[in-house]
């Protein structure tokens, strides 16, 4: 009996020690199967394929302030205070947290994913150089492109002739949330965007299987758009050329069933990179936004876009249906070949190459007009060509995320500067709201919450 007790005592002591010895292994099990830290290139691939944060997060502000649309009074007053304020170009719209998320955080979310991919690539050693380069290029592209959108909203346009030392946007280049947010200058902002995208070109593949991923052509196209916004026409022209060398397919609207509700499908042949916005703003949904009469009337009846882009709402208003991202979104924020032709045409016109410029434009318009009705347009001089091209640019790129930048850029040129006007008719009186060229309101306020949390400087107001 004594020995039995001894054994039991020993056994119980052993039982105490066992968990100590083996618990290290025991506790290494992952708490949830679907959770992991990024350890493989496959993980990074999956992060960059998270459409809702990479391709779908574009802010609505870029289309909410343009003159392409207007709202009926009853629609306007049923909208949120923020949407109303933005629509009426109020100086200081109040951002609620949803607005902060949609207009500010979402693009930075894409930037965060890019930063995580870039940082993980430094750590993960597996994979071929090509696979690693492609992922790196894609992450750089996503970051640069998102920063570009933010720069169109929250800082002054790049001034090719002047000083760009003013307030730019915060450049978040690390996933470390402890890094304090601060604003770069406009110069630094654009330098960084161009660096990201230029480096991306060298790393990206020529072809991708899905247009939700960027290839070399997409990166060239992005740079073409960005240089154009910076008024670096030479560079814009080069980039457009490079892109078009690789891919120049245009859709002939004559081949498209333009009578249906949504004539364009997502990732159609003109698409170079698919980006869009699903919840950027409820103002922009076709049921609410009415197309400006001036814009609608500028299309010739033989111009198929008049039918492909627009529909009669039945209440005297025109709605938009020509969304390049298919029908799932409020606007198309990606890149397509038609824009490249317009960029090159504009640059060529600015260089005085009138014929080449008009060739590019006519090449595009031929695909837009009803077969047999199109006669190539001529321009007498570079100035006329430019004016014509810019007009066509607006007509082609409706709800494509470029109109706001174009207004900001062209306002600096007296020939094209315009004062935007909104009329609000409550049934009794008509109130008029205006946004004159180069107004401070062309730079949106940074959400007040961000100013409070980070202490960064707010954009100036009168």
């Amino acid at each position, binding site marked *: 009996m004594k020995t039995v007790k001894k054994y039991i005592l020993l056994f119980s002591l052993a039982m105490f020690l066992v968990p100590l010895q083996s618990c290290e292994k025991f506790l290494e099990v992952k708490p949830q*199967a679907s959770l992991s830290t990024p350890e493989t290139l496959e993980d990074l691939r999956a992060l960059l394929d998270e459409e809702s944060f990479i391709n779908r997060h574009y802010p609505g502000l870029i289309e909410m302030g343009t003159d392409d649309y207007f709202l009926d009074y009853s629609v306007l007053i049923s909208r949120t205070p923020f949407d109303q304020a933005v629509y009426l170009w109020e100086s200081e719209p109040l951002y609620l947290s949803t607005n902060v998320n949609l207009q500010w955080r979402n693009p930075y979310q894409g930037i965060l994913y890019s930063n995580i991919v870039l940082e993980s690539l430094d750590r993960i050693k597996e994979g071929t150089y090509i696979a690693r380069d492609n992922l790196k290029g894609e992450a750089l592209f996503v970051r640069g492109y998102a920063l570009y959108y933010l720069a169109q909203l929250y800082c002054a346009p790049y001034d090719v002739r002047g000083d760009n030392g003013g307030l730019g946007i915060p450049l978040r280049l690390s996933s470390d949330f402890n890094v304090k947010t601060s604003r770069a200058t406009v110069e630094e902002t654009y330098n960084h965007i161009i660096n990201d995208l230029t480096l991306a070109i060298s790393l990206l593949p020529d072809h991708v299987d899905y247009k939700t991923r960027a290839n070399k052509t997409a990166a060239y196209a992005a740079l073409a758009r960005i240089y154009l916004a910076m008024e670096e026409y030479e560079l814009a022209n080069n980039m457009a050329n490079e892109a078009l060398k690789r891919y120049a397919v245009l859709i002939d609207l004559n081949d498209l069933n333009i009578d249906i509700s949504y004539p364009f499908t997502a990732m159609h042949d003109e698409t170079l990179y698919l980006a869009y916005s699903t919840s950027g703003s409820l103002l922009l949904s076709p049921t609410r936004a009415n197309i400006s009469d001036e814009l609608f009337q500028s299309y010739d009846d033989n111009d198929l876009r008049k039918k492909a882009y627009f529909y009669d709402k039945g209440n005297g208003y025109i709605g938009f249906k020509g969304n390049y991202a298919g029908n799932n979104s409020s606007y198309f924020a990606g890149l397509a070949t038609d824009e490249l032709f317009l960029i090159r045409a504009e640059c060529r016109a600015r260089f005085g190459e009138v014929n080449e410029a008009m060739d590019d434009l006519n090449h595009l318009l031929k695909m837009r007009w009803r077969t047999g009705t199109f006669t190539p347009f001529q321009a007498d001089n570079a100035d006329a060509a430019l004016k014509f091209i810019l007009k066509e640019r607006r007509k082609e790129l409706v709800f494509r995320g470029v109109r706001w930048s174009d207004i900001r850029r062209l306002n600096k040129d007296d020939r094209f500067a315009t004062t935007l006007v909104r009329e609000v008719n409550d049934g009794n009186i008509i109130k008029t709201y205006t946004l004159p060229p180069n107004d401070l309101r062309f730079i949106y306020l940074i959400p007040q919450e961000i100013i409070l949390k980070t202490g960064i400087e707010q954009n100036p107001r009168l």
Partner: protein
Amino acid sequence: MRYIILVCILFSFSISYSQRIINGKIIGEDGKALEGVTIDINQENRFVVSDTLGRFQFNPTHYYGVITASHVGYQRAMLEYNSETSYLNLTLIPDRHQLEEVEVNTGYQQIPKERATGSFVQIDNEQLTRRITTNVLERLDGIAPGLQFDNRSESSVKLNIRGINTMSDALMQPLIVVDNFPYEGDLNAINPNDVESVTLLKDAAATSIWGARAGNGVIVINMKKPLDDQGFKVSVTVNSTIGEKPDLYYYQRMNSSDFIDTEMMLFNKDFYNSNLNGTNVHKYVFSPVVDLLHQHSIGKLTEAEAINEIDRYRAIDYRDDMQKYFYRSSINQQYNINLAGGSNKTAYRVSIGFDDNRGDKVGSGLKRYTIRSSNIIKPTDRFTIQTTLGYTQSENIYSAGFQDYPIVTGGGKTHLYPYAKLVNNSAEALATPFTYNIHYVDTIGNGRLLDWKFKPYDEITNSSGTTNAHHFTANLNLNYELLKGINFEALYAFQKETSKNQTIRSERSFYTRNLINQFTQIDGESVKYIIPVGGIVNASNSEMQSHKARVQLSLDRTFYDKHALTVFLGSEISHRPSSSEGFNAYGYNEHLLTTQHVDYVNAYPIYDGLTSNSRIPFAGGFDSRVQRYVSLYGNGAYTYDKRFIASLSARRDASNLFGVKINDKWNPLWSVGLSWIVTEESFMKSLKWLDFLKVRSTYGHSGNAGGVASTLPIISHSATLSSTAMTNLPRALVSALPNPYLKWEDVRMVNYAIDFSFLNRKISGTFEYYTKKSADLISADALDPTTGFNNITSNIGMIRGHGFDFQINSKNIDRVFKWNTTFLLSKNKDKVKKFHGTMSSTLTYAAYSGSSLRPIQDKLLYPVFSYRSAGLDTESGDPQGYMQGELSKDYSKLLTDSLQNLNYHGTGLPPYYGSFQNTFRWKQLELMFNITYKFGHFFQKETINYHALFNSWITHGDYVTRWQQPGDEKQTTVPSMVYPSNANRDNFYAYSDANIERGDLIRLKDIRFAYSFVPRWGHKVMPVSVYFTANNVGRLWTANKSGIDSDYRALPAPRSYSLGLSASF
């Protein structure tokens, strides 16, 4: 003559028995005689009292009968006698409830409460059975000092012990221990009839043994155990509870006539024009009134016709239909049978329970079957084996298409207009607008589509849901006495819970018809169904297992008479894998159980372009999780001369939550305690009136494990396609940013207490005061959105709290008529002392006033803020506020004003709460009632929001009292209705101090009336108790005058009545 003889014989019989005398003696457990015990003979109101030697005698009037002995501090005892009986021996067992010698179970050991230093509350069986519920925890509401039930969140009841020690909702629940181990799985699997008692562990000395999961206190549920040396015993409990139908008129809403007037006003202002005339008119819902006005405006109806029709609607409120056809009284029936018996070597207990509940929503119900068997075997004097097997099966049914009030319509609106008719006079369901314009769905598809109408009443029966759960437990406890006072224990507990959830939406349901129609392609005469016609099934299965094992070595010895030592050391390991999977299926045929294939991959156009191209919804996938803990613990108590007690407890835990290094996973927690039983001192013996006095104090730490500390970002993979995603690629999202410095929460508590009892235990009680400091609190800390991420889990704060728990029991009258009172009062205030987290916007604090934790430096948790209101503008009825001391109507500025400029009222969580329980006994009758109260908190009442009224049909009864003409501002704070509405103006008023009310209230929680009697069956007696209880009886007093029950955000818990019977033989 014969009759006379018979009468004579009977008479002589009774005389002979009346002359007979039965003697007896009453002793206590220690064998000593008990004096002054009241003995009730045959419950006939004849009493005798035992003498100094415990002796008593009586002459029985009947052939056989039963005597009942009752004595202060002892359980009542009954003994039967028959014609042969001449002597009765009775042993009284001390009453655990009334005597201090209560044993508390910490989950690790049974200790006499007298010898504890920590703060324990024991809820005995009598208290647990006074209220009839399906879930055992609900029975604790209002009877345990320091335990508060927070019913303010609509989805779940939150329990807190001594307030809140954390800043995140996920870490707020107390640890629940059943059968010595933390309980995993659904608490509804426990049959309350199997619960013997509940122990609450409140301070650090009590909880630190549970380590890193005990920061919010511990609730130990002690299951009934077999008792040895007890003959075969059967007991039966049957009860039935009827709950009142929910009262939808509790909600303050606009009446239909006012709503219609508002609609007519809006129509005249062309509010509906753009929707009525647009091409998307089919995507908007319109009310019948707007429809009629529109018909009139386009000349299809005369004004008189329209007005006539409209006026018919004014008297309708669809709550009437819902109250009649959607809701009903709940009926819960509970049956339980208990078999127990044992000898000195073995003992067993088997209990079988059945619950049959009918919910208050039509179509809902629960059936639960429980069986539990436990055995104790003592092969030798030193070896005890205890086994338990338990199995619970429950089937929960509900209508998956049930529409709660208010009905949500979609189609541009939120709530259904109030004057809807849901059911016609012949009890047939009527259609209401839902998602689409009702005229559109009338005509669309020329009959080639499925009916597209939405009938809320039919939806109840068109979809069904079931959850079948099986819960299995097995426990094995071995105890071997190695040497005298030294025990080795090994425990193993296994739990397995599987649950199967299935929702079947038949092809008659709107959900199914809508989805099929959306995907239907009509080309001329041909109709192509992309989604096959038939039901849609969603199913999911989940499984949880839990293995827990413990070895423990304990010593319990007294040395040299005066030095008593209790020590135990142990280690514990737990492994809890869980998994779930789900799928859905289309074209389901409920009779043949066949389904049809669908294409989940490609996006299809939606009928008439109602929405964008979409994929067929797919729900399902797999998930698997593992939770592991390893712990080491030790506990010791030393008692000197039964007077001084010192205790020490320590524990370390480690878990497999993402951590950096193993060292950081270990979290040491400890506590110390001292107590002094003053009445054991010789100098106190002279104070005859003082029975018991003990002072005690403890200090220690417990913790809350939570959060994931990782140096790398954590990503979450997903393979489920979203219905609108453009590609079909595997994707992963970032679920947490790197966060290597995260620590577990630490809760430090100091407790001072005094236990007392005097005047021969007529008055007894406990007063405890505590302070606590919860540091390194983990919370989802809002990040600067520029980081691209909304929040990060981090140690962002510290809370200091203090409070007291006061309990006093008194026996006001203790004779044939007995009156006992228990008074409970607790105070708890938790103030945030440090908060590095990022602040939300001012509007957020004002909008969620008091309803969420929202920590802010130097404020209590659940802070209540409001905008400073400056009354209504006398000219316009506009609400006014203050901006830099000036009157202001710049609402967008007012809403974003600095939080400092708002009123801070206090907290939304009651800082004072308690109950007042009274029990009256007279012979076999017993009456109990419990009054509960909560004081010192605030709440924000709802009010009218004109923007929501116009655009979303969300109404509120405050509309009636709105400002309408100058002078009204003297009677009302409700602003005038303006057109167009201004959401900022509405919000400013809604979140201003005009809508903050005091939450104080007193409630009659329950009443219980019981009658006990002992019928005789031959030679057997069978004590029977019949009882009636009323629960949630009503509010006795509220500080607010609006008739709002501040304990609830939505409907208050309905009143319920139970009738029950328990018997044993």
